């Protein structure tokens, strides 16, 4: 059990753990697995329809496209813990990591609003309660936390 979930006595914790190839076609399936567990734990409708799928899609997309650069020899490891208080999900790639603060741009400024890219990290941070970047052995991890609402 990962300490990040801070499990309370008597809590049921549902865990999703999966490795996927570095291919964006796998994203939707992972999102559905995690959403299913959030539904089981009675997360809010908006969280299930918006916050979780969009933020997780962004994290997976970054891991596959930027972290692993779609290298078929690399995988993305996903582990999610869901209980009645919160979702904690970690997405680990085999890339060199990044500075989450420096890479997050504000896409809402007049000079950025017509950009075609650059909204991913911004959305993750808007839609999740906490987004952290952690160095890992041979790769890096993005950990996102969302409290049940």
């Amino acid at each position, binding site marked *: 059990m990962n300490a990040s979930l801070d499990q309370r006595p008597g809590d049921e914790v549902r865990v999703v753990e999966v490795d996927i190839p570095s291919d964006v076609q796998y994203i939707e399936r992972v999102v559905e697995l995690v959403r299913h567990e959030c539904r089981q734990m009675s997360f809010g409708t908006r969280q299930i*329809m918006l916050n979780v799928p969009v933020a997780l899609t962004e994290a997976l997309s970054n891991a596959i496209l930027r972290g692993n650069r779609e290298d078929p020899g690399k995988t993305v490891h996903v582990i999610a813990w869901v209980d009645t208080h919160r979702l904690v999900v970690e997405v680990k790639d085999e890339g060199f990591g990044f500075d989450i603060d420096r890479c997050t741009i504000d896409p809402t400024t007049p000079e950025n609003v017509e950009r*075609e890219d650059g*909204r*991913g990290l911004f959305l993750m941070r808007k839609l999740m309660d906490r987004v952290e970047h952690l160095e890992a052995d041979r790769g890096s991890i993005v950990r996102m936390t969302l409290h049940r609402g």
Partner: protein
Amino acid sequence: MSFSIKKEGEVVVVDVEGQLIVGNRQELKQKVLDELERGDKRFLIDFAQTGYIDSSGLGVLVSLSKKIREQGGELRLANLNDDLKTLFELTKLDTLFQIADTRERGLNSF
């Protein structure tokens, strides 16, 4: 997830069924660009049957809007549910697009 395209009067209407995300955004882009190349100028994307949209999907909408404008045309959107509206508001893309509450209003707005 799939996209269906049909002509309603002078307007090309695209229905997005399922998600509009990194895995399928290029398919939508190509379908709309094919219609643009054929000379169509008015486009309405209807999100009535859409689940969620990620940043790549939003990026494709911005890209298409620019390309259509460059050809003297216009891209408008319709039927965003409350969650999708929130997404557009968070990114301020609600200021970039003309968004209609219904397909009919979208069609009549041209």
